[in-house]
């Protein structure tokens, strides 16, 4: 069995999975912190309810991100030891900084936030959440710095055939890292905001369906209450209408920022990884047109078979350079350039195993890059349009009774996730056949690049990697089922799922002053597992 292919599948699967949880953590965190800030500032209970409810979903998701993140750090050494040896001098530093300067903050302060509701003064308790959220964003920065170094190596010198770090500042301020970081964080914010919109829509819809809220002749909402259903009082409506509006506004802002940061990143990529962008365009020949739709035979790595169906002249040049007539180099022009610089065949080195001396295919899998790029943009635009539509629909204070629209709203939660996944698959697959892409821009160091074929652990067998791939995939699939089940359960429970004190539905009289009820003694924990 070929360890390289299996190890690549494993890295892809575990990373995509990890990056389902991570953007939700990154995006929902600031929204929850904003809600709690409003509560501390105004004292209005609806903000407290929003903080508790969205905070609960945040935590259910957070733990999965933590658990799957460990795999990422370990597998560089386990499956990619040759890569780790080659890049260790520069690549390990941002990872260690992530642990020391970001993840410690995130985990410790989140523990304080979860358990500190009754133990800490209000403002300090709020500060613990903001510190945890800031920790998660700084954490994302260091990870992106590490990834961007693979896309665009800077700040190193080649000593004895191995990159040695000479300038940490250059690594941290790598222009690739700055643009990828801003694009990733705005993408995550769009995910968090879309999540809030979809779920708040469901709640407003459920209130209408249960006959709690209705609309008058002008379509304006008439808020009601039904205390036999947990948490469904009048204030509950305010929680959801506020949530959906906040979510929609943040989503629209997020998508606006995404298009700007994405544009910046694309311009850099045209410079730094021209072949990736040519493959993203399925552009065989030099030209200026952006392809809206091209087709070719599936699995055909032959550029000549691609047929452009719809093209917009000038747009590609605009994306790359900001004008309409600069020629963008196509695959057929670029490949000979790469062959001249980095060889036509892999070196005859035992590192490459049975691949030593094979011809190098410089073209990334074109279907993946082409469609990855378009799916990313398509999903993003879809989600942005839905957020704008939502904002208009809820202008009179609630959502329509249509089950179809509600279903669409819940489904639209998936769109920003899809965009994130497609974008990462595009940019990582577009890096092939390199694991560390050569830096062609001025200031790049000659010889700092690595073929993926040389990166895998030489001492590890394909069977071992199969074992870990199957174990992890099974565990991940199993846990995904439980995460979704729990999220659904807590969503269906409404705010009362995060605030049991709102549940008066069991009809036990629930005297709030009864000192014998354990929940009412003042030293009872506000939160406990």
């Amino acid at each position: 069995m070929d360890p390289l292919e299996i190890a690549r599948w494993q890295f892809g699967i575990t990373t995509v999975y990890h990056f389902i949880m991570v953007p939700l953590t990154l995006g929902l965190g600031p929204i929850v912190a904003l809600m709690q800030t409003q509560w501390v500032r105004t004292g209005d209970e609806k903000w407290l309810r929003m903080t508790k409810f969205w905070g609960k979903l945040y935590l259910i998701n957070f733990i999965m991100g933590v658990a799957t993140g460990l795999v990422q750090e370990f597998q560089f050494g386990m499956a990619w030891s040759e890569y780790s040896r080659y890049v260790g001098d520069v690549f390990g530093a941002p990872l260690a900084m992530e642990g020391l300067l970001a993840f410690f903050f995130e985990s410790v302060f989140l523990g304080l936030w979860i358990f500190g509701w009754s133990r800490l003064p209000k403002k300090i308790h709020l500060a613990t959440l903001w510190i945890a959220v800031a920790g998660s964003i700084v954490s994302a920065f260091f990870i992106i710095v590490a990834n961007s170094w693979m896309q665009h190596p800077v700040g190193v010198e080649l000593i004895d055939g191995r990159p040695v770090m000479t300038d940490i500042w250059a690594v941290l301020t790598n222009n690739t890292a700055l643009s990828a970081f801003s694009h990733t964080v705005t993408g995550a914010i769009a995910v968090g905001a879309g999540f809030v919109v979809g779920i708040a829509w469901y709640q407003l819809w459920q209130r209408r369906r249960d006959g709690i809220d209705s609309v008058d002749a002008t379509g304006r909402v008439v808020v009601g209450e039904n205390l036999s259903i947990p948490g469904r009082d009048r204030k509950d409506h305010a929680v959801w209408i506020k949530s959906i509006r906040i979510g929609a506004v943040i989503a629209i802002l997020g998508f606006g920022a995404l298009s700007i940061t994405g544009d910046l990143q694309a311009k850099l990529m045209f410079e730094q990884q021209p072949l990736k962008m040519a493959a993203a365009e399925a552009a065989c020949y030099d030209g200026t047109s952006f392809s809206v739709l091209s087709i070719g035979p599936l699995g055909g790595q032959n550029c000549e078979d691609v047929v452009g169906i719809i093209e917009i002249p000038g747009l590609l040049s605009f994306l790359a350079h900001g004008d309409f007539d600069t020629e963008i180099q196509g695959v057929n022009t670029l490949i000979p350039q790469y062959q001249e610089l980095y060889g036509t065949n892999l070196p005859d080195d035992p590192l490459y195993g049975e691949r030593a001396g094979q011809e190098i295919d410089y073209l990334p899998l074109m279907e993946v890059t082409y469609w990855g790029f378009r799916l990313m943009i398509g999903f993003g635009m879809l989600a942005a349009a839905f957020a704008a539509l939502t904002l208009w629909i809820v202008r009179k204070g609630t959502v329509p009774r249509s089950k179809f629209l509600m279903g669409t709203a819940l489904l639209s939660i998936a769109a920003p996730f899809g965009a994130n996944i497609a974008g990462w698959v595009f940019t990582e697959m577009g890096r092939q056949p390199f694991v560390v892409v050569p830096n062609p821009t001025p200031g790049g160091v000659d010889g700092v690049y690595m073929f993926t074929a040389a990166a895998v652990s030489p001492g590890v067998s394909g069977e071992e990697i199969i074992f870990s791939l199957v174990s992890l995939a099974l565990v991940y699939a199993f846990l995904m089922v439980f995460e979704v089940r729990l999220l659904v359960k807590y969503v269906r429970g409404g705010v009362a799922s995060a605030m049991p004190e709102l549940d008066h539905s069991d009809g036990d009289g629930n005297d709030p002053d009864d000192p014998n009820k354990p929940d009412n003694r003042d030293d009872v924990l506000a939160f406990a597992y």
Partner: protein
Amino acid sequence: MELLPTIWFIAIAALWIGYLLLEGFDLGVGMLLLFSTRKDRERRLMLNAIGPVWDGNEVWLITAGAATFAAFPYWYASLFSALYIPLTIVLVSLIFRAVAIEYRGKGSTEKWRMWWDRALGLGSLGSAFGIGAALALTTTGLPIDANGDRVGGAFAWFTPYAVLGGLAVVGFSLVHASVFLGLKTDGDVRVRARNFVVRWSPVALLPIVAWVLIIQFQNGTVITWVLVVFAVIAVVFAWLSAKAGNEGWAFIGMAAFLVAGASSIFAAVYPVVLPSTIDSAFNLTISNAASGEYTLGVMSVVTAFGLPLVFIYQGWTYWVFRNRLSDHHLPEAHIVKPAVAPSSSAS
């Protein structure tokens, strides 16, 4: 003597010791759930004793791993790839443990809690055993060739030393967790924990003591033997304190035992970070496994700034949650019901 690699060897030893010191009792609590009580409220009490801190404790592992990658990439690459199978088991175990802590209380059926408790217990056991095996093997050696790659197949790591190291961390964690629970809880859980320490620690700590002594007989120096003597005094002190009911002193004694014992191991193997059992010429040492001066310098500055901060705010967390937990602190388990009118939930 090379200054920066030596500093980083000490830093990584400190991160591992910090990890075992803190996460030791988290892992132990997880394992104790497998057999110490069947009462749900007692289980919750044990779990909530580590509740606010366990996730922060686990970051010591993440940072130890990443710091090894940054400071000694050849050590990181050789050790992690050589231990492919056991580390896979550690990862799966850690995933289950983390998710179980968070999810066990969120279901409403007994069956749900029972299965997550098992996941939590076995996950803690797998993590402790695997990490112990990995740490033991990096001190006793693995069959690595000149390039640092493992030879001898997927199970070449499976030696008596691996088993000894695994049992060492499992045994230590069980005792450490019991000392911790004695200090942090009240009621039956506290009494039972203290009895466990008095009764079982002489057995449970045997493997870790054996590991310490084996390393000393192979590589010991005067300084490391002094550390060993100190560790033995500390552990006897811990046992006597537990017996006398002084839980605070018992915890300090266990902590001192771990710090001194683990330091004696790291100090004895220095400057070798991963011996080769094939040929000592292939040994990875702090010189041939380290990153360049510049990288180590940058990381030193970052650590000199970051680690004291971690001490401060993580210490503060322990201060905020310093109170003993007893049964009456626990709110009743909350059952989440759908916020849906009965008629529409039926349809």
